């Protein structure tokens, strides 16, 4: 049967084709907008809020770094030396009293109000009072205004980590007057979060223009910022999957991509973009439950050490990509208290065999838990688990993989019921005290039933490290964490690399371990 399309159908078809054609041509159409003064940055959102005293995730932190100034900061991303920010500081000999003196007297909030000591005191107290995720930063610290120039932070016990804590964007300084006017307070009744999400109150180079926690946050330049005026007046941070970020960077659709993995990074042509590689402040490790009833073979120290010597760490480095590093403890190599990476565990299958014999292990399957939907700095945990399973199989160690979504997996880990698995830790602040949670009795150690009195040797080393001062701290903590690794409760796997892809339309930028990408300094 021969069919001729009716004229009406042809007309509709032509009209549609014309419209599609027109729309397709809009690929390069700016639609009347300006793209030259805008940086488009892309990341897969984990955004909950940009209220500085509540946020604790990467996306919120990236935004707040551009909006809020902090009392102290890390100059040029050097995480070993906190320097002056809005204030200069002085720490007493016993590490219990810190005096902050307002230094940036011309600093102004985005509405033009000057930054005062009262704003700093309010910000610190609000962080403490909200009882949110970052409140622990100032646990045991009393905040007191001295005069219009200075304030004091009094710690209950020696707190040498305080200068390393204060640069965190979660301790950003807000305009207390405006926040209070909008239901802000220094206790759990505070109701200013929604207001701060849509009307940031900082003195940083940018302020928030549009906030949508699911799709996009737009920042515009803060005209009252006391530093150099940013070249890019607008920053658009979009929620985009890593696969799409790669294409967008290559095409010039975006200027910054935060989530590319090692393979994606390799595919970027130099003419299309540049890769900024920074040592990540996250650690990947294997945990072993020390309770025999739960951990089974994993609770045996010989078995744990056998696992440690069965892993092919070089292949894990390949998996994590160029720039990733071996670790001898969970403390990142750039922090004080890190154990020299030359002392990192090595693969030795002969040693494994002997240790397994000592442990009496007969090849039984051990449940191995990990988050199947999580990637840490581009390292896919599912892929890592499969790699480890294959490597350990070569040493006759049988892992039964137990993947689960992050929330479920974390729940199991927190309840201390998992025998073995992959753990991740991101530094809250670059000081070794942040890793005390991994020593016996620490909050993470409890998840593998490692009690405070389990290892007197470690307890002694921890005590010594806690008392150490100045340059001695580095060695004392390195000794503690070396001994912690030796037990095999935590097997450090790899320190991944944090890569940021920057599009070729940006000629100059600053990217460091502190702020990852500084929008205000990009040109």
């Amino acid at each position: 049967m021969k069919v001729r399309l009716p004229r009406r159908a042809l007309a509709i078809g032509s009209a549609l084709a014309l419209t599609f054609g027109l729309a397709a041509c809009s690929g390069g159409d700016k639609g009347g907008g300006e793209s030259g003064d805008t940086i488009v940055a892309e990341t897969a959102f984990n955004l909950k809020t940009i209220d500085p005293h509540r946020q604790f995730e990467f996306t919120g932190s990236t935004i707040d770094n551009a909006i809020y100034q902090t009392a102290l900061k890390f100059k040029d991303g050097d995480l070993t030396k906190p320097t002056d920010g809005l204030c200069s500081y002085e720490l007493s000999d016993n590490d219990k009293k810190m005096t902050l003196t307002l230094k940036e007297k011309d600093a102004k909030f985005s509405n033009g109000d000057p930054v005062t000591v009262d704003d700093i005191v309010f910000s610190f107290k609000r962080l403490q009072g909200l009882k949110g995720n970052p409140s622990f930063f100032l646990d045991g610290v009393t905040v007191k205004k001295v005069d219009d120039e200075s304030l004091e932070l009094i710690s209950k016990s020696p707190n040498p980590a305080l200068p390393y804590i204060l640069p965190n964007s979660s301790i950003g300084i807000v305009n207390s007057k405006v926040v209070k006017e909008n239901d802000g307070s220094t206790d759990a009744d505070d109701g200013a979060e929604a207001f701060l999400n849509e009307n940031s109150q900082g003195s940083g180079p940018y302020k928030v223009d549009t906030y949508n926690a699911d799709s996009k946050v737009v920042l515009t330049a803060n005209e009252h910022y006391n530093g150099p005026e940013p070249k890019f007046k607008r920053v658009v941070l979009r929620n985009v999957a890593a696969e799409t970020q790669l294409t967008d960077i290559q095409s010039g659709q975006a200027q910054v991509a935060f989530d590319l993995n090692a393979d994606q990074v390799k595919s970027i042509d130099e003419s299309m973009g540049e890769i900024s590689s920074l040592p990540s402040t996250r650690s990947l490790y294997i945990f072993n439950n020390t309770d025999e009833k739960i951990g089974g073979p994993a609770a045996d120290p010989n078995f744990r050490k056998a696992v440690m010597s069965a892993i092919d760490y070089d292949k894990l480095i390949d998996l994590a990509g160029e720039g990733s590093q071996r670790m001898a403890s969970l403390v990142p190599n750039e922090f004080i208290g890190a154990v020299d990476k030359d002392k990192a565990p090595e693969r030795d299958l002969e040693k494994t065999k002997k240790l397994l014999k000592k442990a009496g292990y007969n090849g039984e399957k051990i449940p191995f838990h990990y988050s199947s939907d999580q990637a840490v700095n581009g390292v896919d945990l599912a892929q890592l688990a499969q790699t480890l399973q294959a490597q350990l199989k070569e040493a006759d160690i049988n892992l039964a993989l137990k993947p689960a979504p992050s929330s479920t997996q974390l729940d199991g880990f927190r309840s201390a019921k998992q025998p073995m698995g992959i753990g991740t830790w991101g530094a809250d602040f670059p000081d070794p005290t942040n890793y005390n949670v991994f020593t016996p009795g620490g909050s993470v150690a409890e998840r593998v039933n490692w009690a405070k009195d389990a290892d007197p040797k470690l307890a002694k080393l921890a005590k010594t490290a806690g008392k150490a001062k100045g340059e001695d701290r580095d060695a004392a903590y390195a000794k503690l964490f070396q001994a912690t690794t030796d037990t095999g409760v935590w097997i450090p796997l790899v320190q991944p690399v944090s890569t940021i892809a920057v599009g070729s339309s940006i000629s100059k930028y600053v990217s460091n371990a502190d702020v990852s990408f500084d929008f205000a300094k990009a040109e």
Partner: protein
Amino acid sequence: MSVTTADSTSADSPSNDEAQRIKPPLLPPLLRYILIRIGISLLLIWGVTIVTFLLTNLVPTDPVAAILGDRAAADPEIVAQTRERLGLDEPLIVQYFTYLSNLLQGDMGVSNQTRTPVLQSIGQVFPASIELGIGAILISVIIGLMLGLASALNQNRFLDHAIRTLSLIGISAPTFWIAAVGYYVFFFKLRVVPGAGRLDPWLQPPPRVTGLYTVDSLLAGQMSTFVNAFGHLILPSCVLALFTIGLLTRFSRSSVLDIIRLDYVTAAKAKGLPARTVIFKYIFRGALVPIITVVGLAFGSLLSGAVLTETVFAWNGLGQYAFRGATTLDLPVIMGVGLVIGVVYILVNFIVDLIYGFVDPRVRVR
């Protein structure tokens, strides 16, 4: 014998005779049909609230830890306070009735993660998915029906085999892969479509009326924004449409083949009517009724199944919102999205039922 039986029946039971008389119905059949369907739909929606609530609350994990994060969750006092604030310390049945009561007042709760009312967020993301869904369904219907018709009219010829193979590919190809390849080829290599998102990032969305950027930009008279929004819609719509095109092609082919063999079509051909008239007025119209069901259901599935497409194209619609809610164990979001998708399916079915009722009178008196 038969007469006697008939006589005796009529003589012995006058009441039966009365019963056999057809009483006028209380309600006109069409109205009765509509009311019954509304009743069924409301019952189904209630059922959906129970199912989403139970499924969400039976997940073997603690949402409080996911909400608070590692640090705050380490403090039992804060955990207890949060549990109490969210009503999670109440028995499940009490939690359900609180949920239902809030729902009846238009309150779907607040996202545990972003502290934004779920209804407000759904209001923002739903139009994005609707816009994508409409685009996809238009493309699917036009192409799917045309291919199905062409395939049926060329049964067992080369064209038929080719179309059937293509439709099979459309149905079985993984959407995520198609989306990624499509984005790479048509945006990155050929530059015939714009990049991800609903608009170029440096453009402001048009003033909100419907939430559909194409419609709102037209209403605001912003032609360049319209062209930009329409351009962004093309590729994700086409990707999303692929599965439905395959489905519709196969369904309309078999539907047309069923009709083509009926006597009235043979009669129309025998009368010497032009081929075009026979195809479009007799065959296609006859085949269209069962296709309506497929189109309706396909629209529902497009809205709920767009997660992967929305992810690749950074299309912040219902799918992405649901994905984020699920991965962060945001119970109010999961329940809200589940309910909305359930209601959409029920509504679509209701509309399809109504169309049947209007089109085919036999349906409403069944």
